[in-house]
């Protein structure tokens, strides 16, 4: 068995699917030094990637979207699940996503749903702080790589604001300003300037947040179900000290 390492791009992943299709192979982002199997580097190839994409589109219009969402989850082993799903689908020449009796289908559905959830959570939990220059900045550390999935939402909603959303985990920055949005990778030694200090509205928001909770109905467990602890570091209303 060979291990195909494709790096981090979607195109690289599709190329790896193409290369792996007819052989015993496993796909991953980067080589694991401890692995028993030989590994090969895959160079992204637009022609191979395009063939896989067209193959998916032939089976169902939105199949590529499911695959993409699942891939963005960055779950361990998701690449191999996706490869298995594509082999089955191309082999049977039909869209098998509805066949939840199949464990590969359930694994991919789960991964895609994780990304969908994480996207939704970011729509909920991104919190901007305003810099003295009037730029709005937010930091996030999502489980799935959802930055590309939230650009339209934030750009459309705050189209008169200059925004930066920084994915600290992946060192990616979403930049939204008049005219459009894009994502850029941070340079290797690029330092992140710290977020600006809180102002009046951060304090007002925290004050409001505490005032509206009804003490007669306190239910912290329920609260934690909806706002898991791992998001709270970046949530204004859960911070109680000034940065």
């Amino acid at each position, binding site marked *: 068995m060979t291990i195909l390492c494709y790096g981090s791009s979607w195109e690289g992943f599709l190329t790896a699917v193409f290369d792996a299709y007819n052989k015993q192979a496993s796909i991953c982002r980067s080589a694991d030094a401890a692995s028993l199997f030989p590994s090969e580097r895959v160079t992204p190839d637009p022609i191979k990637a395009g063939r896989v994409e067209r193959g998916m589109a032939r089976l169902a219009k939105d199949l590529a979207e499911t695959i993409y969402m699942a891939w963005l989850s960055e779950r361990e082993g998701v690449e191999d699940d996706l490869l298995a799903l594509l082999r089955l689908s191309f082999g049977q020449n039909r869209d098998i996503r509805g066949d939840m009796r199949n464990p590969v289908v359930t694994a991919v559905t789960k991964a895609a749903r994780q990304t969908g959830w994480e996207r939704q959570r970011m729509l909920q939990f991104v919190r901007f702080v305003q810099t003295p220059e009037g730029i709005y900045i*937010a930091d996030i550390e999502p489980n799935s790589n959802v930055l590309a999935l939230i650009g339209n939402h934030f750009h459309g909603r705050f189209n008169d604001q200059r925004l930066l959303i920084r994915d600290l985990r992946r060192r990616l920055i979403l930049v939204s300003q008049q005219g459009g949005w894009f994502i850029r990778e941070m340079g290797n030694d690029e330092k992140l300037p710290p977020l600006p200090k809180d102002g009046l509205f951060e304090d007002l928001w925290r004050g409001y947040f505490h005032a509206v909770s009804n003490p007669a109905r306190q239910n912290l467990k329920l609260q934690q179900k909806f706002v898991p602890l791992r998001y709270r570091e970046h949530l204004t209303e859960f911070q109680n000290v000034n940065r």
Partner: protein
Amino acid sequence: MELMEKLGILGDAAKFDASCASSGSGRAGKPGQLGNAFSAGICHTWGADGRCICLLKVLQSNVCVYDCQYCQNRASNDVPRAAFKPEELAELTVQFYRRNYIEGLFLSSGVHKNPDYTMERMIRTMRILREQHKFGGYIHVKTIPGADMRLVNEAGMLADRVSVNIELPSAGSLALLAPEKKPDMIFSPMKGIETARKMALEDGKKHRNAPLFAPAGQSTQMIVGATRDTDRTILRLSGGLYKKFNLKRVYFSAYIPIGVHPALPPRETASAPLWREHRLYQSDWLMRFYSFTADEITENGELLDMDVDPKCAWALRHPEFFPVEANHADREELLRVPGVGMISADRIIEARRFGPLRPENLRKLGVVMKRARFFLTAGGKYEGESRHDHPFIRELLTDKLDNGQLSLFTGGAAALPAAPAVALPETPSFLKMLNA
């Protein structure tokens, strides 16, 4: 007064309103306009009481000339009072919105001076938001009972959702506890709003730029457990309102003892009937999405079963309907099975096209087998217990509570507050008035 203090008072005073949905309005952002409305709604955070916060929910003013006994803002109650200036509140909303704290504003108010004056202040706030700040986010406004219909209409042109709260589920309770409010002050604006909304929809079909009127519809709220109105009364009235006025939502709010009126549950003994509120929401959900009727849900009596959820309760009462076979039941039948939801029903229907389903597949499809196994077979296989007598299954389906506050409740049926020290006046039911 400091803005912080004001916000504290006016946020606190609004917290008894249960509704916080921001759904139902889909509006794309426009260049040069701030904000959009996201049709599925977005909850931005959850408070320590586990309730979602998606709108800045405040009162324009908590000064009130009325004296509704169940309300902490009533004139006779000694609480700190405050009022927002329209400019101030609009600015606050925009600043919160820009930081992605909220989807928009939920604006309500005590009756400051008189209903019309109050509505005018609220309209002013909305106007500043929409016109000066070009605010395209969500606005939910609660109309003030007794305000001129012209003002209600004006509010509807500015807001996404309009609500008129019923508060008490029967005319008798209303007469007793909120004597200044007459049923007509509630139902005629509801009717007016529905008419205006329908007209705007019709116009919208003819001209693309016709003005919208409360595009996210209207909702209402009822307080549960302040009076002796039963679950059946409440659910039938909800059913009637959904039908008659096309309401988007009916909210329930468990009464938190604050009043001292002889007809109210006494402060010391009563705890908020949260469990009852929960069962009512479950029932409401069944009515809206699972085609249950209020009569089906309450066929067993005036009060809901508190031990098991209303869907399980119905299933236990209807052994003749079960078991349902996952491999060929239609959607309607699947939806009657406890533990099968809308998503899992659709997945069952989708997955069985690929081949027969076995019991072990069902769990993967999202079916909650803990409940469903008593009512569902797959390929003829039944995974329930070998005993299937009613008390035994019922016991297994009983909600076991680990949450301290909900376990305040014990016993099989909902408890109504003790009979009031004063007699309820004889009045026709709201449902009758609706259908008259």
